[in-house]
């Protein structure tokens, strides 16, 4: 039972990375785990390991050549969360607030993350070691199936960024209320309606942008033309850009629509690639778009 639970945990964790591998690559780079290979190579190796071990455990393979790598993987996860906790406790972690308004805001504290991982992974791993049968032949068919499924998963992950999976891979999808898109906990909780309270009433087109990208700069003329037009939902942009980047974009690109700053931890779970946009009606997300909104249609 422990092996199945651990396998499922690994597969669920892998699923989130498979549909949004770019996010995992960024995470690898941010954690400085790309010392020997590129972040992309490390991410795909880790994904392969996670999927293969998850499938092996779920399919009942509890050999040492499965359990020992699984133990190492669990130890590695705990090392990462433990390191984040240490960094946070010693003031070594960087601030997450883009405009500085939010101070040090994180979705779950590193301490919580460490203990959650510890509670979820270690007992399951311990149980997986108990009650293993005696010497059995090598599970050739199951191993072959796992190898094939792992390769298929990697191929899927490779293509995933180009597939229309944004609604599946992110927290932003039709039917979600902006007031329920939040980050942080307790008094540090920030929701999208704090950043854009106007979205609670009326119809609004919201574009999430990376202000340092050429794509954002190239989008400004079309967005300006829409913003100065008389009809259609009002236009807003959201960005996690820092104050000076925002200032530079404002003056060098000349947007005629308002750009609101949002904490990166609030925006990050809402997109795979930028720009991404959505339509809000009375606080409810009604449509999402993988790039800019259909301005001509919205201007109607």
């Amino acid at each position: 039972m422990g092996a199945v639970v651990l396998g499922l945990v690994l597969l669920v964790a892998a699923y989130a990375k498979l549909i949004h591998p770019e996010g995992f690559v960024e995470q690898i780079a941010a954690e400085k785990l790309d010392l020997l290979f590129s972040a992309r190579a490390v991410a795909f190796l880790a994904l392969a390991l996670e999927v293969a071990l998850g499938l092996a455990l779920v399919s009942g393979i509890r050999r040492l050549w499965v359990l020992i790598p699984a133990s190492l993987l669990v130890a590695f996860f705990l090392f990462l969360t433990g390191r984040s906790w240490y960094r946070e406790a010693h003031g070594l972690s960087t601030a997450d607030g883009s405009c500085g308004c939010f101070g040090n805001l994180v979705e779950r504290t590193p301490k919580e993350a460490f203990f959650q991982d510890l509670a979820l992974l270690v007992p399951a791993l311990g149980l997986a070691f108990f009650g293993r049968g005696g010497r059995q032949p090598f599970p050739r068919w199951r191993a072959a199936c796992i190898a094939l499924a792992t390769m298929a998963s990697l191929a899927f992950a490779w293509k995933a960024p180009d597939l229309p999976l944004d609604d599946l891979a992110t927290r932003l999808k039709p039917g979600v209320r902006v007031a329920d898109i939040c980050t942080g906990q307790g008094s540090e909780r920030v929701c999208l309606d704090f950043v854009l309270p106007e979205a609670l009433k009326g119809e609004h087109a919201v574009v999430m942008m990376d202000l340092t990208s050429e794509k954002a700069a190239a989008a400004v003329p079309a967005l300006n033309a829409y913003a100065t037009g008389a009809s259609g939902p009002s236009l807003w942009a959201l960005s996690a850009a820092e104050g000076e980047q925002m200032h530079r974009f404002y003056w060098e690109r000349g947007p005629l629509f308002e750009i609101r700053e949002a904490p990166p931890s609030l925006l990050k779970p809402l997109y795979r690639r930028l720009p991404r946009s959505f339509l809000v009606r009375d606080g409810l997300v009604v449509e999402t778009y993988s790039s800019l909104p259909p301005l001509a249609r919205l201007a109607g």
Partner: protein
Amino acid sequence: MKPSQPSRAWIAAVCLTAMAASTALSQAAADSVLRDFSPTSEFVIWIAGKEVPKAELYESPVAGAYLLITSSLASPVLVSRRTGTAESINLMKVVKRPDGQVDLLADATLTPLGRLGVEGTDILFKAENKEVRFKPKPPLVGAHSRADLLAHSPAYQRTADAYRPDPSTLDRLKRQPKNAEVRIFFGSWCPHCRRYLPNALKLEELTAGSKVSFRYYGLDVPPQAWRDPEAVKLGVKGVPTAIVFVEGREVGRIQNNDWITLETSVARLVGIPVPAAR
């Protein structure tokens, strides 16, 4: 008497011309885009290395432009974010409206002065061979009154005017018997404070004479903000943060989403039974 006749005729001609010009001005249409410029105090203006405190600066979000009028320059200057350029305009083509806003006339001719430069947070350009700089206003730091905040950022008044607190909650807040103090930490540099601080200014105005009082404390830009002794003492880690004290004892804090309906958040913390803000 002869010499005075041409002089009178000259005066009459000038008067007639001025009246004609005035009539023409009042009838001339404002430009469809370069209009509705409102006074802004977002920047401090420096010309040729000297601060010009009396310079008038107006902003039109629709036009994506600022209009600078100062006696230090012979002509007003239109500074356009949209085109990234500065252009001079004939003063006669600038019309001040009774409501304090400014329009440019449709037939105004813009003379290019050059492209805008961005240097850190400063915007600069050349006009009449002088360097003109728009420097962001320094942050408002330390304890300040409502009047100080409005003087520093007049745009707060517009946002405050648009805020409509719930009348019944407001009424209960005004009638509550305890001494309550709302101590607000803000950053004049913080975009979310610009959005929500005016709500507090409005609430202070509407609860005047009651037992609810407001105090404002401005923090410097980060990371200095989080090292401010007052912020450290009260454990303030983000802005805007309102700490509510009842009879001198802290009863709670208003942060993030609780700012959206400030009157409800304050009422709840002072012990008035109101539905949750969210």
